[in-house]
Each structure stands twice: as C-alpha cells, then as structure tokens.
C-alpha cells in the first residue's frame, strides 16, 4: 500500500483540539459513570454498579444452568420418587451414577410380592459433566440437576454424593450481613 501525505486537519478539528473537546468529553464520561454509580442509575445498561457481592448476595445463574444433582421426594409423604429403574445410570455417558436397589416384601391384593426399591444412590460429581441426560432419562422426574453451583470440597471423596446428600442437599456456609 502506498505512502500518502498526512491529511491536514480541518478547521473544525483544529478548533476541537484547541478547546480540548475530547478531554472534556472523557471527563464527562467518567463523571457520568461516577454519578451513575452513586445514584445507582442507568449509566450504561441497566445499573450503575456491576459488582456482584457474591457470598453475601447469591448471583442468579442462567435458567438452563445445570448444577448440583438432587433426588426429589414426594412433597407430601417424603418418600423418594426414585423407582430404582437404573435408566439414569444407563443414560449417563460418564458412568458416574450407581443405583443400588434392594428387594422388599410387600402384600399386593392379599398376596406376598417382592418389590425393587431404592437402597442407595451414588452420584460422583467429580466425573459428572452436567449434561443432564440422566435428568432427561428419569421417568418420575426424581433426579434433577439444580441451579446450585457450590460443589467444591476439600477432598476427592467429598465429590461422591450419597443418597442422603442428594436428597437433603449438601451443607454450605451461608454468609450473613
């Protein structure tokens, strides 16, 4: 590409430089941001301050976010909804779910029958990639990936969630103030 002489500044450009219009514009911008932050009014798009006060105020994650798994229970009887069908374990591409069923004796129409119910449910979150295929596979809407994202633990063993953790949720520190 050829070299060309620098174009001479127009009179308007010279005036702009003389009165330092760009400097004043910049000062105006920063002042606008400052006042927007103080009044918490719309300075750019929506709010004055973008900082999320994370532990104090929990952020809203995206609606389709997949987080910690949970085993839902019947809201009235508090029995698990899981029927130990093992579909989630089969659906899991990472093989991180173990459904351990057990047989119980029940009486159906006066006759003794054996029924398969859930004994233990092992979910290894360290191997999980949160694809939610298990959630898709579940016929009773029992297994669900919630919006909870605080999954860190101090040991590898802590990543393996058992049935109790999956049903009750894991204890996390909640910050006051």
């Amino acid at each position, binding site marked *: *590409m*050829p*070299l*060309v*002489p*620098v174009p001479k500044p127009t009179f308007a450009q010279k005036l702009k430089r*003389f009165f330092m219009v760009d*400097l004043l514009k*910049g*000062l105006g*911008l*920063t*002042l606008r*941001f*400052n006042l*927007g*932050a*103080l009044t918490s009014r719309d*300075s*750019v798009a929506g709010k*004055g*301050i*973008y*900082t999320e*006060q994370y532990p104090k105020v929990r952020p809203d994650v995206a609606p389709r976010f997949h987080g910690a798994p949970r085993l839902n229970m019947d809201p009235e009887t508090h029995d698990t909804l899981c029927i130990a069908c093992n579909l989630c374990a089969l659906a899991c591409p990472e093989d991180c779910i173990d459904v351990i069923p057990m047989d119980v004796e029940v009486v159906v129409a006066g006759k003794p029958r054996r029924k398969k119910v859930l004994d233990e449910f092992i979910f290894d979150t360290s191997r999980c990639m949160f694809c939610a295929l298990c959630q898709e596979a579940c016929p009773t809407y029992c297994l669900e990936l919630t919006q909870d994202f605080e999954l860190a633990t101090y040991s590898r063993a802590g990543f393996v969630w058992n049935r109790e953790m999956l049903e009750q949720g894991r204890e996390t520190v909640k910050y006051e103030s």
Partner: protein
Amino acid sequence: MFALLAAPTIIDSLLLRFFSEQTVNYVIWPFIQVGAVVTITAGWVAYATYLERKISAFIQARLGPMRVGPWGLLQPIADGLKLLVKEDFIPENADRWVFFVAPYIAVVAAFIVMAVVPFGPDWAVITDVNIGVLFILAVSSVGVLALILAGWSSNSKYALLGALRSSAQMVSYEVSMGLAIIGALMFARTLSLSGIVGVQASNSIWFLLYQPVGFVIFLISGIAENNRAPFDLPEAESELVAGFHTEYSGFRWSLFFMAEYAAMVVVTAVATTLYLGGWYFPYVYQLTEAKGYHNAYVAVSLLVFLAKAGLLLYLYFWLRWTLPRFRYDQLMDLGWKWMLPAALINIVVSAIGVGTIQGLNGFNGMKTIVSTTNGLALTPTGKGIAIAFGVGNLFLTAALLSLINWRSRDFNLKKQRSKIRLVDLPKGKPAVAPAASE
C-alpha cells in the same frame, strides 16, 4: 453544638489557672493546634486512599472496598495494620542509612507544610509565616530529595530510573508552579497565606477570576509535582514496577504512600488558598462573626476550606481515571514548552493588568483602587478590568502558546510522520493479508 464551639474559650480559661498567659498562648495552644492538624491530616490522608479507591471503583462501575465495616469505611485502618505487620525488607547492597532515612524525609517534607496552611481564620491556623508561599515552595521541593535518595539507595535499576524521572519532572514543573503563583501575588501584595486569604475576603473575590491561567498552570504543575496520573511516570507500573519505592515494603512504603497523599492535600490546600479564596465564602462573615459567634465563624470557615480542597482532591482522582499516562517526551514538552511560557505570559499580562488598573486610577475621574496597603483593594470597576484581563489572558495565552509551538513536534506520534499508510479495504470483503513480495 454551641457548647462544642464555646470549648476553646472554656479550655483557655482552664489553662490560664495553671499556666501563665505566655505559656498558654505560645506553648500549649500551638501544641494543641499541631496535634489536631497532624491527626486530622493523617486521618484525611488515610481516608483519601479510601476515597480514591471508592471513586476509581465507581468510575469503573465497581463497588470498591465493601467488606471492612459498613461500606468498607474501616478499610484504611485494616490497610494500616497490614502494613505495620509486614516485613520491613532491605535489599542486599542497599545503602542502609539512606534507605532508612528517605521515607522520613518524604513524610516530613509533606507534613511540615501544613504548619503554614490557613485552614481558617484565627485559631484554625498554626502559624502565619510572612513568607508562607516561599516556605511551601521550598519545603515541598525537599520531597524530591527523598525520592532521589530512595531511588539511589535501593540499588535497583527500576528505583533509580524512577527517581531520575521524578527528579527531572519535579524540577521542571517546580519552575512553572513558582512562576504561576506570582500573578496571584501581584494582587495580594503579600507572601503570607493568611494575608492572601484576607485580601480575597476583604475584596469579596476569588483570585481564580483574576488569574484563571495561573490557576490552571498551578493545578497541572501540582499534579505533575505530586507524581500523580496522568504524570505518574516515576511510578509507571507498566514500565518501572513501582518507581522509586520498588524496594520498599511494610511501614516504610506506607510512609511514602502517606507522603504522596499528604503532598496532594498540600497542593490542593495551597491552590484553594491562592485561587479559590481559602476559607472565605460569601455571607459567612455577616451571618456569624458579625452576630458575635466567633467560634462558629471559624468552624464554618474551616468547613468551607475543607470543602474547596476536597473538590480539588476529587479533580485529582477524576483526572487520574480519565487520562492515560503521558509519554516522557510529552511530559517534558508540556513542562517546558507549554507550562513555562504560559506562566511567563501570565506574569506579563498580570503585570500589565495591574499597571493598567493603577494607571486608570484617577484618569478622567475613574476610581479603580481603594487602597494598596492591605493587598490590592479594587473598586467594582477595577475588579471588572482585572477579570477582563484574566479572561482575555486565557485566549491570549492559548494563542501565544500555539504560536510558540507552531513548528514544534506534535504530541501525537502519528502526526509526527509526514506520510502515513492509508489502509482502506473495500467494504464487505474479508481482509486479506498482503502478499509477501509487496
């Protein structure tokens, strides 16, 4: 409220029971004043750091310190504690004694100036030296020595380069700073800071109106003198790590930090005194002192002074987060080719202005000067002429500066090239890398 304002009188009578009047007037009260000023300045310096962090955060749509105390208000205390317990590290082969002494020189040079700053009338000023302006200029220049010593003794290339830069910068801007003051002094006819405020108060005017050019030069030079952005080359993080205090840590580093903020407070205080009327504000005198509330008058004046200085301090932070850092040659250009001529032009024009006012006094029955014994007391006509000279000087200075720098290099490196490569790609087509042979 009034009980608090009556406190000085009560304490005075209490002290007079135990000590003679001379002791009370010349020893005990000054001690109380010095203690108050040092404490308040130190607190103000600490909270200036908080303000700086908050304002920078707000400008960048952040929140700033929020966790220590409500709205992070205890953050400076937490910072101070952290700095106190940090290791005081001395580099190998450092010049130990100089390394030890440098931060103290910086702090002393910054804080001692507070002795002559008139925070208010009467008891709100520690001492009224009759060469106050010269004292401030002289003592604040000692701050450069601290930076040079710190940079030299650290035995580090970054520190040394930072010290070199800062000394060059401070010396260049000292000149225009000193010259910029002269214009205001012509109207004040005194070097005492209290006297300068007194002249503005008795004339009911701010010297900003007489000396807009002087004010601008003083502010820019002050920012450069304090090594603050956009002139923070001595501490340019991207080039010099931290400049002259690279090797300092813990409490010594915090002393440098305090010195920097104290120097800022000093420059804002002096700018307020010289150009913004110091503690003078219209109608304060009539509403308080004239009605007999002397201590209320002093307290309100003190608040006025702090408000004015605070506004200027905000300007510091505002500029810092607006402007990018200058290049070194731009800095020197600005100092020697723009600030210095502007200061000289300001002196000449102010002198012509004062001369015109004096010449017109008594000419055709015009009356411009009331008296010259206590500053230049002007009649409304005289004030009009002085303000006209001041405002006209803005344009004259700008025009003359453009004339002086007509053929000088441009600040913009792009414009220094006589020819540029025009890159205009056809619109709507993806950019293609030029062939290697071209």
